[in-house]
């Protein structure tokens, strides 16, 4: 599937800020199932420094710095991406005991190592209620890791209410979980907490979601801003799988990934500190339009 993506993030400061440095995770990632055709990130005012960098996990980030005082910043992304559906074969993933053994013998700390995603991270702490919830979803005898991932993700989609405005970017996942309300970031953090608490390595993926549903289907939730979902490790043979707990579905070809990390903090679209005494407001707008012309479809079917 071919998508045109538009993202705009603005910050307006009440009092001009003296300067600032930001790391941006906004541009679509290049990967096996995702090909970036064009990607343009426009920043105003024009930054005094702008460099592209690759982080520990292999994500592409852009660092910008402003030296002069400014009262507003706008980031605008335009990208075209070809996304292919992830093929899913029969579930061959191990049971949790076998997964634990695999991890205990794991001797690598490279960027893809599952070990980075097993412990507490700054925004996701393991909690007894996460573990209890996770165990309850597999009490019926679900054994294989991938099936467990799906069971927990589906359960969260069922039990939690998608509710913009009920939380903010800094709401701890346990709070959102207690209220059973939240947005994609909360769904994702809670699911990560659940998976890690039973020994499944899990991380955070930020990205975009197709904004217009295919003919006859319902519009998905979380399309008005950047989206987030879960990445879980199901043993060396299966590797990483991706699940969207907000919509209760495996990631196929309606999700476009930007970056992944341990939690939101690793891949927040705009990281950075501004020295400001006044207040600030921010706004985000996203469009992800499929280009479903017959010609496109033909070129994608190969």
């Amino acid at each position, binding site marked *: 599937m071919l998508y045109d993506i538009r993202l705009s993030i603005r910050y307006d400061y009440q009092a001009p800020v003296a*300067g600032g440095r930001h790391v941006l995770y906004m541009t679509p990632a290049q990967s096996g199932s995702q090909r970036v055709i064009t990607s343009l990130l426009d920043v105003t005012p024009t930054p005094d420094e702008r460099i592209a960098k690759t982080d520990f996990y292999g994500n592409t980030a852009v660092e910008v*710095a402003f030296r002069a005082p400014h009262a507003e910043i706008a980031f605008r992304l335009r990208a075209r991406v070809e996304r292919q559906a992830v093929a899913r074969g029969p579930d061959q993933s191990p049971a949790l005991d076998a997964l634990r053994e695999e991890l*205990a013998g794991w*001797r690598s700390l490279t960027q893809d190592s599952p070990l*980075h995603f097993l*412990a507490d991270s*700054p925004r996701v702490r393991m909690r007894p209620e996460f573990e209890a919830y996770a165990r309850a979803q597999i009490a019926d005898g679900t054994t294989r890791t991938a099936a467990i991932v799906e069971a927990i993700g589906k359960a969260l989609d069922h039990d939690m209410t998608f509710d913009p405005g009920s939380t903010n970017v800094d709401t701890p996942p346990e709070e959102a979980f207690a209220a059973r309300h939240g947005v994609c970031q909360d769904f994702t953090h809670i699911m990560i907490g659940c998976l890690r608490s039973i020994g499944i390595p899990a991380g955070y993926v930020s990205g975009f979601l197709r904004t217009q549903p295919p003919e006859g289907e319902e519009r998905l939730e979380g399309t008005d801003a950047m989206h987030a979902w879960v990445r879980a490790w199901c043993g060396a043979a299966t590797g990483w799988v991706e699940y969207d707990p907000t919509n209760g579905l495996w990631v196929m070809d309606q999700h476009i990934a930007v970056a992944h990390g341990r939690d939101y903090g690793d891949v927040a679209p705009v990281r950075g500190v501004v020295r400001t005494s006044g207040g600030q407001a921010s706004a985000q707008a996203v469009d992800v339009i499929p280009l479903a012309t017959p010609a496109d479809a033909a070129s994608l079917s190969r």
Partner: protein
Amino acid sequence: MSSPQSHTETGAVARLLAGYRRLPGVSDELLDAAGKVRPAWRAFIDHVARMAPEEISHRVEQGDQYLRDAGVFFRQYGADQTERAWPLSHMPVIVHESEWSEITSGLIQRADLLESIVADLYGSQRLVMEGHLPASLVATSPEWLRPLVGVRPRSGQYLHFIAFEIARGPDGQWWVLGDRVQAPSGAGFALENRVATTRVFPDHYARANIHRLAGFFRAFRDTMNDLRGDTESRVGILTPGRLNDTYFEHAYIARYLGFALLEGEDLTVQDGQVMVRTIAGLEPVSVLWRRIDSAFADPLELNEQSKLGVPGLVEAVRRGQMAVVNALGSGILETRALLAFMPRIAQALLGESLKLPNIATWWCGQESERAHVLANAERMMIGEALSTRMLFDSEDNTNLGSTLAGREESVAALLAQRGAMLVGQEAVTRSTTPAMVNGVLTPRPMSLRVFLARTSRGWRVMPGGYARIGRSQEATAIAMQRGGSVADVWVLSDKPVRNETLLPSPAAPYRRARHGELPSRAADNLFWMGRYVERAEGMIRMLRAWHVRLAEAGREDTQLLAHASAYPGFFGADPVKEAPRSLLQSISAATASASQVRDRFSVDGWTALNDLAASARVELANVAPGHDAARALGQQLHQITGFSGLVNDNMYRFAGWRFLSIGRSLERASNMTQALMWFADDAAPEGALDMVVEVGDSVLTHRRLFAVATSRSTVIDLLACDANNPRSILYQLQEMKEQVSYLPGAVERGEMSELSRTILKLHAEIAVAAPENFAAERLAEIQLELWRLSEVLTKTYLR
């Protein structure tokens, strides 16, 4: 084993050691196993034995006096955040150099090992791939900083200044209790321990062959300066600021070594180059000795919550434009569980066994280790595996296994459930050393903190300086808790030692040290300190005048007192009930500003300011309005003018003093303008003119110059336009004009700066004006001009 006391001694020494004995099953530094005084201590003990008890206590007082004069404090964390006097145990610990050289060789080996480990963890990761270290332990540690993986330090080395905590076990063998690499503190305190202890035993110290400490610092200072490469840049100490428990030491060592004391806010990054904001613009910094934890060093790439760091610092390191000591991320080496793997890693990386063993440690993430800890729980301390605090020091849920004895199930359950997050450590019994307790030598458990610095010729070990002494006799490791004290450590040579100092020899060519420009934040604090102190003084004068009039009138409802009560300089505060509080606030604000520039401010000045704050709190509480209050305020006035005199007469005219001075002048001019607007107003009641003349400390002058009663013109003449009256607006503008002319950029390419022009214009206008030109509206304009001056100054120098 029996616990022999030193029964072999006679005379004075026997008396001195009468109550001193070895504790069962514990080594002692002073007495050997047979109860004899060890040879290294002999001369010293003989010396102390010859001193009369009064002499000893007099000497001890001299040492303490030194520490007070030098302002040695450390901050205690807790509700009140008070500064606490440095708890020096006046008896040094003495180690012979032959034993010291064994310690040294063991610690150098360990330093090299730590360097190899950290280089591996951030580099090729062989230790993990070959299974010498569990990968999960590294991945789980919050101190393993992923953004630093693959980043080679510019110098090629990760570690440049480290410390080890070591102790002697019952068998006489030294053990490493912990590795301190994150931001080890104590080296500056060691210097102060040394100076204070030599005040206690000056004659003996001069004669005894005790290794000096200065050479170590000189070598380290040279290393740091060399790390700059050939750039014209600065070396800085990055401190978390005045609320940190060891801020005193940061300021002290910055002064001692000649490095800039910087906070995150002082710094900014441009194109990968770290810069310090100074009053003359940005200046490059290429070496930072950090006293903050790595994770807080850069909110952009590390802990995003940090308010202490510098956004972009990691990138500066990555580009090789900044050397951080020790390298960001090296805190991983302090992970407790790492101690369990050190013997094996030493074999893997160095092909050697550890010369000095570390405290036996078992990581409970492994089956057999877990079983061992469980089986020996009564001899174990059990604590968090990933913690970087030393087990015996910490207040986390460390349990001496024995306290759980009889609750075997709970230990087993704990280990089964959280094994990977726990370690067991053997409870080490430390040796004892003599401490003077109520005039009697008493054995107290101790450990040494040994500092190592990397030099161009390898690691150099600071010969002594710092021991920690337990508070109670209980010699198990855990007894070393808060409330302990600190002692000097003397490394004794058989031969004469070189007398070393950090200062260049007098024979060397005379050269003034080159100092970087004053950081803007320091200038800002000095400027505001000047303003706050002057504001407090102005308020005291006004309040005193008010209370004097109350005492005269005997009632509050006179026209004059009512008018004065509404004076805007009281900020709406009632002079009796609320004004003292806002006065105290001004004084606290002055103290707070001063505390942020401790490295640029004399100890005397600092002490005087603190005394002022303390006495104001006491004296102004619960005074009766009228006479009593006027008297108390008079005393405060003496104190505050004493402080100003100290600053004015004793502070060198560095740029910092100029900002302080400008702040004071600006505030004084502004206060006077305000007072004239209120009290020299045509509508002001009778007596108002006299009151403002009194507040302006010009009663006698007025009498001499005019020989008539006060009128609006005479008062304006004296307090606004008289160039010879230090209380006048014109005089203060004159002062500011002068100080500003010395600041960087005051005149550039023949053109005056905006600040110079603004002051000059206002000064000229007031200088040529006649008293009758100072209508109320004009005074209000002057007030606005003065505020604008403050803004221009801030914009030009303080951001």
